[in-house]
Every structure is written in C-alpha cells, then in structure tokens.
C-alpha cells in the first residue's frame, strides 16, 4: 500500500496538466508577442462548446472532437487576430486589456445566447471513466489521460519552438522584429500562426476541462484567474515554466484541500505570492 501522498501528487499533477493546456497559449502570446489577451479563456470556452455540439448533436466520438476543438478555436483566433488584435500590438497594455476583456464579456453573452445559461453535460466514453487500483492508490482513467495529453503537448511545443525553422522564426521575430523583417521573415504571418496555436491549445484545454469542471458561459472568466496565476508563476513566454507552474499550482491546490481543508483553495494564492516574492519574473521568467 502506498501512502496517500502519492494519490495527492497524482491528482495534483493531473489537475495541473489541465491548467497547463489551458494556460500555455496565453503564456506564449504574452511572453513572445507582448500581447495581453484576457479573452484567452473565451477561446477555451469555444473549444468546449465545439466538443459539446459535435458530441451531442452530431454524435462524434469524444476523441474526434478534440482536434476539432483545437482547429475551431485556432480558426476563430485567426479571424480575431487579423481584424482586431493586430491593430493593438503596439498599443499600451491598458488598451489591450480593455479590448480583450471586452471581448471576453461579449463571448459570455454570445455563449449564453446560443447555448443558454445551462451547464452542458457530456457523456464520456466508458473507457475514460472509472479508475484503476495501483498498490492501494486510486488512479482515475480520465486523469491519467490528462497527464498523457499534458506531456505530449509539452514535448510537441518544445520541439516546435526550439528545433524547427518555424520556431526559429518566432524567436527571431520576438527578439528583433526589424531585423527579422529585414531577413525576409514574414513577421505578421508568424505571429498569426503563433497566436492561433496558443488559442487552439486553449480550445483543446476547454474541451478536456468539461469532464472535470463542467462548462457554462461563465467559463471565460472562471478559469481566467487560474490561467493568469499559472502564467505569472511560470514566467512569461516559458513553456517549461508554465509546465512547472501548472504542476505546482495543481499539486498545492489538491494537497491544500486534502491536508488543510480549512485553508482550502486559498493555498494556491499563498504559493503564488511566495514564488513571486522570491522570483518576481516567475519561475522561468527572463524579465
């Protein structure tokens, strides 16, 4: 029999992976493009509703809806980026915040209009339900799946940004935009694709989140707090930072609730304050 601490670690990491997939896109756009996108969770919500519609109305299997959630959110973000966001790349932080928080409010109203204010139930396939027993530990199948997705996404992102031509272009465009343009890199396109990638991941996160936390129109705001905590603790623009921060926040949330229920969900804020006092730029932040 393993002591309960392992169960707490597993649940915490699984919850952290969900937070990671939801927040890594924001970390990328905020860190690499200096754009404060508070409507990030609206794209996550779009991904969630995509999954719900495909599963309920068109009877797609759950797994098939995940890429769709990614692409629909990415596509929507390209439209928004081309029409609205790109005008504000050089604007002040406040202008960006005002525009994006406004969009988040609009997304809540749109979701309520089309999908009503009800919770959206989804019926997970049987093979993702239930749990395994592992030396007295209870390993939820869905949580195991979340961990797998989180690790896969991290590996893919690091590969893309560090080891591909596109990744090099992104890094060049961020470090010195004029120089990058001078070398013939299409900076606008690079940013648009980066932004779409980040929003697509949010969409995927939204779809994965339904089983754990549910989905209703307030999603765009409810998770914004957690996502911002992960981004600030991890450090802007750092994929590994987001990964570490998401694990840390996930584990401290679950451990706090398990060992000190009176403190409950407050512990993650203490962790955030402690980390930021120690490293104001976040765990892996560069500035």
């Amino acid at each position, binding site marked *: 029999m393993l002591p*309960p601490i392992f*169960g*707490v670690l597993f*649940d915490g990491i699984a*919850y952290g992976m969900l937070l990671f997939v939801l927040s890594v896109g924001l970390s990328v756009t905020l860190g690499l493009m200096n754009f404060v996108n508070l409507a990030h969770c609206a794209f996550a919500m779009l991904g969630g509703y995509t999954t719900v519609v495909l599963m309920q109305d068109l009877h797609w299997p759950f797994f098939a809806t995940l890429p769709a959630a990614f692409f629909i959110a990415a596509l929507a973000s390209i439209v928004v980026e081309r029409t609205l966001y790109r005008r504000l790349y050089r604007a002040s932080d406040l202008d960006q915040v005002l525009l994006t928080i406004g969009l988040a409010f609009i997304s809540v109203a749109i979701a*309520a209009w089309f999908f*009503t*204010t*009800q*919770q959206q*139930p*989804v*019926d997970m396939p049987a093979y993702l*339900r*239930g*749990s395994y027993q592992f030396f007295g530990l*209870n390993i*939820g199948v*869905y*949580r195991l799946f979340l961990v797998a997705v989180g690790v896969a996404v991290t590996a893919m992102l690091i590969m893309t940004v560090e080891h591909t031509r596109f990744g090099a272009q992104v890094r060049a465009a961020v470090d010195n935009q004029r120089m990058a343009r001078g070398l013939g890199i299409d900076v606008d396109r690079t940013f648009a694709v980066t932004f779409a990638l980040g929003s697509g991941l949010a969409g995927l996160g939204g779809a994965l989140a339904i*089983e*754990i*936390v*549910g*989905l*209703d*129109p*307030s999603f765009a705001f*409810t*998770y914004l707090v*957690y996502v911002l905590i992960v981004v600030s603790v991890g450090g802007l623009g750092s994929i590994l930072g987001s990964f570490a921060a998401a694990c840390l926040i996930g584990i401290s*949330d*679950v*451990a*706090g*609730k*398990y060992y000190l*229920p*009176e403190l*409950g*969900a*407050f512990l993650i804020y203490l962790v955030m304050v402690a980390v930021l006092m120690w490293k104001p730029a976040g765990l892996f932040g560069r500035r």
Partner: protein
Amino acid sequence: MRHMMTAAAALLAAATLPVAAQAQGTVKIGVISAYSGQFADTAVQIDNGIKLYMKQHGDTVAGKKIEVIRKDTGGPNADVAKRLAQELVVRDGVDILAGFTLTPEALGAAGVADEAKKLLVDMNAATAIVTEKSPYIVRVSLTLPQISETAGTWLATKGGAKKVYTMVSDFGPGIDAETGFQRAFKAAGGEVIGSVRMPVANPDFSAFVQRAKDLNPESIFVFVPGGAQPAAIGKAFAERGMDPAKIKIISTGEAVDEQAVKAMGDVSIGRLSAWHYDYNHKSKLNDDFVKAFNAEFKRNPDFFAVGGYDGMHLIYEALKKTGGKADGDSLIAAAKGMKWESPRGPIAIDPDTRDIVQNVYIRKVEKVGGAIVNVDIDKVENVKDPTHGRK
C-alpha cells in the same frame, strides 16, 4: 437656458401624467434577480416560471393590469439589490418586489420593502433568516433547514444509517445545510464522524472526496450549489469508486438536478436526496405544468421555475382577495395562511412566519425507461422551517 429648463419640465410633466393616470389600473411588480453572471441560469428559470404563469392566467387580475419590471443584480450583491429596490419603489413606483435568486439580494432589498411597506415575494433565496427581516416578506421557495433537517432525520431513522460524513460548500447556505443536517441526524441518534467545508469557487473535488473516502463512512451528506459543481463532485465520487449502492450519498436537490444526473450518467444511480420539487414528480398538475413549460421554453422546469410560478400565483390570489388593493399591509394579510395546490404538491404560507410549508420528498436516482431521473421513494408532509423562533 431657462427656456430649455421650462420646456424640459413641461415635457417631463406631460410624460408622467398619463403614467399617473394609468397607474390606477396597474399593479407593478419589480423583479430583482441575477440575470447575468454565474447565477444567470437560476434567474432565467425563475423568470420562465413567472412568464408561464402570466401566459396561462393572463396579465389582468382583479381589474388590474400586471406589469413586470426586471432588474439585474449580476450576482450575490446586497448593495446592488438595495439600490435597485429603491429605484423600483421610488422611480418606477412598483407595488410589489419579487424574484431574489440569492440570499444577499433578498437581504439587501428587505429594508426597502420594510420602510416602503411593500410586499416582497421571495421566489428563491433559501437562507432561513430572510423572512425575519421584515413583516412584509413572504417566501414561496424553500428554506435550507427545512430540507436538510428532514434529510438528517430521515437518513438516521428510515434511511438506516448511523454514521455520516458531511461535505458542504463554505458559505451561508452550505453552513445552514450542515448545521441543520447534523443537528437532526444527531437528534435522531446518529453520529457525525467528520465534516469538511469546501470553498465555494472549487473546480476540482478530488482531494475532498479522497478525505471522505479515507474515513470509509457509512453515509455522506453533500451540499453544493447548483451549476458546475454537482456533476464535478458526483464524478469525483465515481472516480474513487464510491458507489452510491454501497455508501449512502444523500444531498439536497441541487446536487442531483437534471443537468447534473445527465452529466454524471449511470454513476449517479442510487444517489439519495431530499427536495421539494422535481419535474419527474408524479401528479396531474405537475404533468401539465411540465408539458406547458416545455412547449414554451424547450426545457424542463426546475425548483427555480416552480418558485417563480408559485410566487406569481401568490401575488395573483392575494390581489383577488384584496380586490386589487396593492398596498403591503393588505397583500401580506391576504398572503398569510394561503393554501394551494402547486405542481410540487400541496403548499401553504405559515401565517405566523410568512414562510413556506410544503412536503419534502425523499428521492432516489433511478433509470426509468432509459432516462436517469429522480424518483420519489418517500415523503415527509407539511414541513415548516424548523429554525424560526428557535434560539
């Protein structure tokens, strides 16, 4: 400038005159609810209940035209509710205040109703103290102690459980539910082996459920607010292999509402709850109500909707009794002791406390013809709020 002022004054006077004349034949109801934000669905369902009642019974009663003015509080904001109540009474000249998704809203508006001597109909807010805040408040929804004490007594006696672990959300209604349940359970000879209060904003329940599981309790009492949490905590139970067939999991109605059992699926089968209304409740009146509600809004009614529906019934019947007199004293006198048959069963207004008296049903989640629904397995008749007058 002076000309403009005079002109504006004249315009204003002209604009208000016909209203004043028309007001003779109108009773205005100001509905204060959280139409936007996290609790929007609650407000929508209350409103659907109001709309359906007015559609079925017309918008004229005792020779008066009923006019509804809706105001949005955006959430549990007592100060906003108070300001809106003032605006409604002073500027819009409403005769009755109604709605109240959440307790803070009702408490915020209570003072205004008291001072202005206006009838206040609480269509949802369920904390026991609401009706004690003014002699003009009447409640048609439920009180949490009414439900949770009934659940506690039932579980310890007919439910056959002697030990319980309680899990509630850490806010007013949750603490009300915990206090009521534990009190009644202990009074009936049961033992509370542990309890936990969970944060209201709580996306992941795995840790709390694991804590409960470690104690291996015979039964668990749950209170979480409606919305995302019922399904989340239900799935957390299932994930940890806590089968309702082996561990008695009893809750209030929110935790097994229609959306929640749909989202949970088969793992919700066997869950127990104590509650005053479900769309699956069997009676001719309720069948018709559910049918009409579906025809109008394409969804099933829930306890919020029935609160709005019965609230309007109370207002209509009170106005009939007073012959259209809409002052607070006449209306509250008419409301006291009123009895009627609601879709949820027979209900009444306690003349002493102005609070709801109703049957509390004990239900079990079962699969009936492919659909997962709450089925009544027992009922406790004419339950009053047990806390009024208790010190």
